[in-house]
C-alpha cells in the first residue's frame, strides 16, 4: 500500500478542520485515552439522551491519523444509539487489525472505511484506534457501568 493513500485529501481535511474538536460544556461522559506508544491523548466527551448519542466532541493532541480518525468517528456516531455506536467501534477495530476485510460489511463505517489500509501499517494502528477505543471505554465503564457494576 502506498502510504499516501492514508494521507488522503479527505483525511487531511478532517485533520485541518476537525468539526468535532472542541471542549463540550458539562458533558454527561468524558474519558481520556492515551496511546502508550507515543504518549498522545484524546479526551472524548459525550452527551447521551434516551440511549442515543446526542453530542460527541474531543480535545487532546496527536498525529493526523488519530485526530482525523476521531473526527470521522464523531461524525459517524452522532445520533446513533449507544449500542449501535459500540458495534461500529468494534467493527472499526476489527478492520484496523485486518480481521474484517469485506468492503460490503465495512460500508457501515461510512467514511471511516477509508482508513482500512492502516491495517498494513502496524506502527500507526494504535493512532487510528485511539478515539474508537476511548469511546468503547466510556460505553463499557461509564454508560453500561461495567466497572461500577
Amino acid at each position, binding site marked *: 500500500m502506498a502510504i*499516501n493513500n492514508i494521507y488522503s485529501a479527505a483525511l487531511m481535511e478532517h485533520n*485541518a478542520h476537525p468539526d468535532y474538536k472542541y471542549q463540550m460544556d458539562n458533558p454527561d461522559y468524558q474519558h481520556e485515552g492515551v496511546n502508550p506508544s507515543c504518549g*498522545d491523548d484524546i479526551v472524548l466527551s459525550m452527551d447521551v439522551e434516551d440511549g442515543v448519542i446526542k453530542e460527541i466532541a474531543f480535545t487532546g493532541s496527536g498525529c*493526523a*491519523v488519530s485526530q482525523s480518525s476521531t473526527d470521522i468517528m464523531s461524525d459517524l456516531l452522532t445520533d446513533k444509539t449507544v449500542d449501535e455506536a459500540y458495534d461500529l467501534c468494534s467493527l472499526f477495530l476489527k478492520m484496523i487489525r485486518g480481521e474484517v476485510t469485506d468492503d460490503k460489511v465495512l460500508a457501515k463505517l461510512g467514511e471511516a472505511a477509508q482508513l482500512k489500509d492502516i491495517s498494513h501499517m502496524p506502527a500507526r494502528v494504535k493512532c487510528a484506534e485511539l478515539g474508537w477505543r476511548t469511546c468503547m471505554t466510556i460505553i463499557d465503564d461509564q454508560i453500561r457501568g461495567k466497572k461500577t457494576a
Partner: protein
Amino acid sequence: MTTEFVTPTTGASNTSTRDMLSKVIDIEGNPYKRDFPLLANNPQISFLDSAATAQRPKSVLDAQRDFYERLNSNPLRGLYKLSVEATAAVDEVREKVAKFINADSPDDIVFTRNATESLNLMAKSLGGSILKPGDEVVITIMEHHSNLIPWQQVCRQTGAKLVYMYPDKEGFLSDEEIETKIGPKAKIVSVAQVSNVLGVENPVKKIGERAHQQGAYFIVDGAQSAPHMHVDVKDIGCDAFAFSGHKMFSPMGIGVLWARKNILEKMPPMLTGGEMIESVTEDDAVWAELPHKFEAGTQDAAGIVGLGAAVDYINSIGMDRMEAREHALVKYLAEQLSQLDFVRIFGPKDPAQHTAVVAFNVCGIHPHDVASILDASDVCIRAGHHCAMPLMTWMGVHSTCRASVAMYNDKKDIDQLISGLKKVWAVFNGDK
C-alpha cells in the same frame, strides 16, 4: 583528542581540525556503502537513523559467524582447543577495546549487553554503595533515560538528591551552570558526551575537572560519542565510560563499561552466578578477579568477537577520516534543513556544532506523520521522544523528528530526506 578546547562555551574539542578535514571530504562520493550488506542491497533506502542503531559491515557479520563456525564453545575454563581459542579471541577484543578508548588495562573493560546495562551497573553498584541522604548526583536535562532513570532510582533508594544541569537554548552548558550545580554535596556526576537529541558535545573535560575538585566521581555516557570521535578516557579524565557496540557497527547485544581499576575493585557485582566467582561454599562466595567479577553467566563471545571486528573496521578507515566525513555530512544535513522555512531545528544554530544528530520538527505536523510519510520515500528517520522525555518537556515539545548520520551516508541520502520533507509539507498543505 589532545587539542585543547577551542571554544570553551561549546565544549566541542578539536573543532578546527575536524572543520579543516571536513572541507576536503567528498560527500557525493561514497566508498563505504558497499561494505554494508543491508545498504548495498537496498540502494533506494536513505538510512538516517544510525543514532538508534548503526548498520554493520560485512566484516563484522563474517567475524561473528566465523566464531560460530570455527571456535564456537564456552570460552571460560575450557581445556580443549576450541575453548582455548574462543577464550583467546575474547581476550584479544578486550585489548582492542581498551586501546580504542585509551584505557590502561584490558582488565578494566567489562562487557555488558548495552550502554544501558553499563550505566545501571555504575548506578547500582557504585551509587548504591556510596550514596547517603543529602548527597547529590548531578546529570543534565539532556540525558537519555538510560543515564537518568538509574540515577532517579538509586537516589530514591539512598535518599540522595538528583540535580539537573540545564543548557542554554542551543544546548550548551555554561561554566556557571557547571559550577553552580556541581557543588560540595555532589558525589557522582554522570553526563552524556554527546546528546542523542541536540547533537551537542558536552564539555566533559571541564565537567570532570569540576566534579573531581568537588570530590565527586565522573561518569561519561559515551553511547553517542564512541561511534563518532576519538575517545580518550585519560584525556577526558573520567572515572567511568559506557557505550554500546550496536551503535558503532558491532552486533547487537554487546556493550562496554570501562572504569578505573580502583573503582571497579570496590564495586560489588550487580549480577552473580557462573563464571564470576573464585570460590563458593553453601554460605558464601568470593568474587573472581576483574573483569570477570562483573560478567556473570555465559557471555556473548561471538558478539564480542563482532565488536572486535567493528573496532578493526573503524581503525582501518581511521577515526579522523570517519569523523571528518560525518562532520561534513551533518553540516550539510543541518544546513539543508535550515533552508526549509517550515522546519524548526533543535540544538545548536551552528550546523558545525552538531555531532551526527539533528532533531527537528515540521511546523504543525506531528513527527509520527512526518516519519510515516518519509518512509514512503524510503527515508528512515526516527520520531518520538528519543528516550529523553525530560528534555522534551524542557524544550516544550512532545516529540521531535531526528535524522542522524554515519560515515556510510552520503549527500544523496540527505537530499532524499529534504525532498521527502517537501512532500510531507505538500501532503498537509498542498503543493507550493
